[in-house]
């Protein structure tokens, strides 16, 4: 289902270079650069307000930077038409946020099946594949519940199943465990890490929690909208 050739394994799959983004008088990003290789998990860390979410949004094609470039498999996202960006978000990218990504009116199973149906799959096939992912993420037993009826951890594992069900090349996770206690957080991170390792999915993981960042292969630290040089923390 990947529409884009992920290309040469040595070249980064996704690369942001010198991103600048200003909101009114606020400089959210003042020169942020980051490479993400295929299959790699990178943690973006930094204090609240340091620009982590803005960087994730620029990389996922949800926000256009004022300057700088975002390349995905060789394609320039910062200048790509909106239509192409929404196509990529449907086919190549998966998203998980801290709250609210599940549709409250749908059952867990229909939530996970939805991206497949939006991609043109029939309802039966979509629900079958969605069920497989829910089982893998330990939420098969909750398939008929609505998001409001699940625990926070179950809802986040359902959201992960929904993010991965289309077989994306990159998952963007913004504080995916931000609202969870330590054991629920551990379960979400363990299942995410194991799954993406098997499927070769790259993950951009935004977190302010070092215990969560420790699941990543490496860390990129943001401070006041600027990324630190490689290997250097906050």
């Amino acid at each position, binding site marked *: 289902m990947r529409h884009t050739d992920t290309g040469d394994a040595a070249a980064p799959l996704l690369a942001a270079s010198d991103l600048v983004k200003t909101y009114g008088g606020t400089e959210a990003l003042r020169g942020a650069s980051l490479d993400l290789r295929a299959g790699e998990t990178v943690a973006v860390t930094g204090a609240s307000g340091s620009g982590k979410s803005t960087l994730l949004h620029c990389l996922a094609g949800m926000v256009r930077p004022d300057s700088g470039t975002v390349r995905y498999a060789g394609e320039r996202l910062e200048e790509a038409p909106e239509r192409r960006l929404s196509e990529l978000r449907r086919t190549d990218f998966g998203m998980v946020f801290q709250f609210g990504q599940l549709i409250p009116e749908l059952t867990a199973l229909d939530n996970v099946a939805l991206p497949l149906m939006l991609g043109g799959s029939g309802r039966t096939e979509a629900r079958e594949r969605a069920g497989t992912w829910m089982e893998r993420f330990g939420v098969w037993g909750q398939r008929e519940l609505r998001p409001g009826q699940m625990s926070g951890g179950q809802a986040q594992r359902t959201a992960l199943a929904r993010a991965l069900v289309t077989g994306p090349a990159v998952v963007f996770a913004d504080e995916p465990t931000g609202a969870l206690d330590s054991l629920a957080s551990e379960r979400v991170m363990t299942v995410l890490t194991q799954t993406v390792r098997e499927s070769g999915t790259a993950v951009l993981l935004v977190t302010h929690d*070092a215990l969560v960042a420790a*699941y990543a292969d490496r860390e990129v630290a943001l401070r006041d909208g600027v990324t630190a040089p490689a290997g250097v923390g906050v």
Partner: protein
Amino acid sequence: MSTRHILLGLLASGPSHGYDLKRRHDERFPQARPLAYGQVYTTLQRLVRDGLAEVDGTGSDGGPERTAYRTTEAGARELARWAAEVAPPAPYVTNEIFTKVVVSALADGDPAAYLRDQRAAHLARMRELTAVKTAPGADLATVLSADYALNHLDADLRWMTTTAARLTTLTAEVDAT
């Protein structure tokens, strides 16, 4: 803890005699065991023997005769090396990290650079421990001990993050006393 390096750090702000060094040490590190005079004098003599400090002069100020010491260039280099050296990321290194940051700030060093390196070492160790505890088949004792170490390293890391953010103020305060 390295008494040699703490004394070198205290000497970085100017010549001082043994009694004064002991008093400043006990003030600066109230959590540490107070230094014994004997230990201060022995350590000063070793610093002189190793060329890291030298006698600045003697005086009595109306009281007993006292020898003042000053740091040498080699002493300043040794202090900078120690202050920049990453501590092994294990639980209970907090006190060493704290001491390095304070001594480094006292000696006009670069505690921010040290904290970045220490943070990277801590996170690398936390990644190893996370891999150990999430490996398929990890037994309960392994998971519990990895959790224990992870949470203590995380506490260090949060202190280091706060300290890095506070450093400008901290340096200013240490300079002022």
